[in-house]
């Protein structure tokens, strides 16, 4: 598959804008819409109009900054996660958006509401429900269940199960908080439901392990977990503990594989074999020489997302210098890409393979999404979103 940059959305490259840093991107399950969440709490939605071209569709302010009086801390309005609901009806779509503490269910509807002036053809956006007050720590994931009724939200120590219909109650099905906090050694970094089984979800940890929970065995799931790990990790270095922390974990759409992203690698397991990964792909080995420096300036703690192609045959993840890599799962062969804004006048090397000295650690692709239409993917770097179209 050859990928070609089709569209770029964002602002003038010379205007660096903190507020408009993209913090979350997601195609809807039908491939018709693309939602983008920003540092400033705004969400912008693009619609697939003709062919693979997207046009601006809607924009709304999803979250505002808040102040937590109990802890005297600011709660940022940054949108961490966006998840579209599969259900659609009559010009209406719904999505869940989340910041650090609160999840909201938004409805986008093209039907005009009574009492409202004509909206210039823009759809009406409305917050249907607010799911709040359930997380003592920062929310890192939201995932919808295939039953169409429930979803989970995860923070560092807990995974909560919600019903879309009820925002007054949530059930904590995983709680790994130790009685003595000084014994804390592992936190939850990402959680996601199985694509079609309603009773399974996985979560990744800072220790480089993926846990699989079956909600059928017990109400409290932490007693019955399967662990996916690496039995003989090779190349352990001083920094292994830090680099093995997983930032994202995803099931393949066919439900047969689990993929996790840690700082340096993508690891893929067969769901039937938890002892050892099927494959480990090195994303950016060329930064290894610089690990000490990266540890000093905290860049080693950067988080990257990973995603599957809809046919479960390829995987993708972001890297530095605005690059992203697509691996063919069967062969492990990588395709290195770099998201370059055509309006960016700075000089760029033409080589596709990255070289250690030239790495720009300030530019990274941390958020990515692959449409259910196999030939469409999007990645976000800084203030820009790049849409790629593929053809064989």
């Amino acid at each position, binding site marked *: 598959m050859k990928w070609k940059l089709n569209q770029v959305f964002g602002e003038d490259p010379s205007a660096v804008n903190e507020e408009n840093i993209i913090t979350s991107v997601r195609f809807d399950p039908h491939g018709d819409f693309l939602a983008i969440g920003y540092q400033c709490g705004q969400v912008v939605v693009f619609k697939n109009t003709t062919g693979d071209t997207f046009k601006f569709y809607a924009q709304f302010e999803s979250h505002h900054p808040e102040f937590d009086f109990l802890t005297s801390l600011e709660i940022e309005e940054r949108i961490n996660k966006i998840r579209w609901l599969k*259900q*659609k*009806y*009559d010009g*209406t779509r*719904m999505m869940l958006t989340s910041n650090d503490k609160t999840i909201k269910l938004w*409805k986008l509807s093209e*039907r*005009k*509401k*009574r*009492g*409202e002036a004509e909206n210039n053809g823009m759809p009406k956006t409305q917050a*249907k429900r607010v799911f709040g007050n359930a997380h003592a720590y920062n929310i890192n994931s939201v995932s919808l269940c*295939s*039953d*169409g*009724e429930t979803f989970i939200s995860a923070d560092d120590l807990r995974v909560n199960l919600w019903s879309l*219909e009820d925002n007054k109650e949530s059930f904590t099905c995983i709680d790994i908080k130790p009685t003595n906090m000084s014994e804390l050694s592992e936190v939850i970094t990402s959680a996601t439901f199985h694509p*079609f*089984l*309603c*009773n399974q979800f996985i979560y990744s940890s800072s220790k480089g392990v993926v846990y699989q929970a*079956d*909600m*059928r*065995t*017990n*109400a409290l799931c932490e007693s019955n977990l399967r662990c996916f790990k690496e039995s003989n990790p090779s190349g352990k270095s001083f920094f292994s503990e830090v680099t093995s922390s997983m930032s994202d974990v995803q099931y393949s759409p066919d439900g047969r594989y689990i993929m996790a992203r840690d700082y340096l690698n993508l690891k893929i397991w067969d769901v039937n074999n938890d002892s050892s990964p099927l494959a480990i792909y090195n994303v950016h080995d060329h930064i290894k020489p610089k690990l000490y420096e990266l540890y000093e300036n905290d860049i080693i703690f950067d988080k990257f997302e990973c995603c599957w192609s809809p046919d479960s045959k390829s995987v993708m993840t972001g890297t530095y210098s605005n690059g992203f890599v697509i691996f063919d799962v069967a062969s492990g062969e990588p395709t290195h890409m770099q998201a370059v804004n055509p309006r960016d006048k700075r000089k760029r090397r033409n080589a596709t393979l990255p070289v250690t000295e030239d790495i720009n650690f300030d530019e990274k692709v941390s958020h990515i999404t692959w449409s259910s239409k196999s030939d469409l993917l999007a990645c976000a770097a800084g203030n820009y979103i790049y849409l790629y179209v593929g053809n064989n």
Partner: protein
Amino acid sequence: MEDSLSPVALLIDQLKNEDTQVRLNSIRRISTIAKSIGPERTRKELIHFLTESTDDEDEVLLALSEELGGFIDLVGGAEHASSILPPLESLAAIVEETTVREKAVESLNKVAEAIPNESFKDTFVQLVKRLSSGDWFTSRTSACGLYAVAYRKSSEDTRKELRSSFLQLCKDETPMVRRSAASSFGNVVRQFTKEQVREEVLPIFNQLASDDQDSVRLLSIDACCAVSSLFKNEENVQIIIPVISNCVSDKSWRVRYTVADKICELAQCLGPELTKSNLVSFFIKLLKDNEPEVRTAAALRVQGFGSLSSTDVIIKQILPAIKPLITDQSQHVRAALASNIMGLSTILQREKTVEHLVEIFMALLKDDYPDVRLNIISKLDVINSVVGIELLSQSLLPAIVDLAEDRQWRVRLAIIEFIPLLGSQLGVQFFDEKLSNLCLTWLGDSVCAIREAATLNVRKLAEVFGSEWAKNNVIPKVLSLYTHPNYLYRMTTLLSISQLAPVVGSEVVLSVMLPLVCKMVEDSVPNIRFNAAKTLKSLIPLLDASVVQSQVKPVLNKLYEDQDRDVKHFASLALQQI
């Protein structure tokens, strides 16, 4: 004549208002509008307009769905009932808010009942067909709720189509639709003939019971009752029992929980024979389940299920399964057991209760977790009617004392509420020896809610044991609190007086209480003074007019001159009473 002030025009205007509350209020008044314009205009103008107004906030749409259900008379009675269908169809089809759709379905069913049989097919059945084949899952989900009524009022030809399309919905690809179909399954299938069920329904029923989605499987348990009602016992062994058996062993605890939750309904539907031969063993399995939530649900059904089984079965099979639950690891299971097991005593009668159950009660009375003990104590009147309470009094007392001194005030509060009951059953002597001290301690508790409950308690005891008892045992101690250095405890005295005065008799009030209150109006703390005024106000109706004039009024007048504003205020309120 279209008047700009016509009710319908006014409604149209109000419904354009930006304020949701305005729109909501006007929707709530549409029946008034309908009455004023009469049936014909209601059908032609109002309903027509409302059909176009199905896009609004959920609150407004919910009110609209509800109001329309009551419109049958307003559109001119049964023959015109079908004119109400269009707006309801719209609401049922596309509103994503479940509560609105459910209300619309409810109203649609109401209207359907009224539609005359001749026009039923062309109106309601067509509506059901449209919703069932709708593109959006919302319309298909709503359709499921309409089949029961549609089927009942249709002829055999139509029924055939309806059967087929309902069973199609049971296989829908969207879990939401399948859930809705499974919920309505019982009501619809109940109306089929045995042959139709056997041939067309059973395969679908089995499919629902083995659906991938846990949430669909557990809804099939409800349907078991309806399906089983059509078959005889021997047939149910083949048809229903395997389904229940699979659910009892289902991997998902939620499905097993649902079986436990519905076990009594299942026992009633299947009858005593099948209950004995099959359900008992299922019930016991659920009592031993490895998920505490399931054991809790089963424990809560002990009494209900026991009442549907024979004494023999209870003693030989159920009780042995219950015994391990007394020491279950989860306090919720133990608490559930404690709240339910007492009921078995009425089934087993005295002798067997003494033989088998009393030891269980005793063990639960000693549990660590307060809720377990409280649940036993709350059902003591059941025990009393069967075996009498003396048997338990040995273990009861330590348990009560423990609960009365528990660190959690809510536990202390709960036990106070049982004291009058215990008093009436244990008798005065026992009570005086053991429990009266407790009651008085509570009057001096550090938590205000406890002190208040304690004063109420003392009054109830006075009602149970009589005013002589109150005068001799309680009053002296209660009233002695008035010398306490902390004003909050002195308040207790005043509160007690208010509570006790109606039950102790005027002599006590006059000789003991009134002087005390009059003394307390001189207290240094204003709160005491104005509460004294309040107490005097409550005493006035109980005293002779002469006493009121000679003793109460001067005191109140003096309080009225008090410097504190609140004291003045309550004094004046009391004076108004005179």
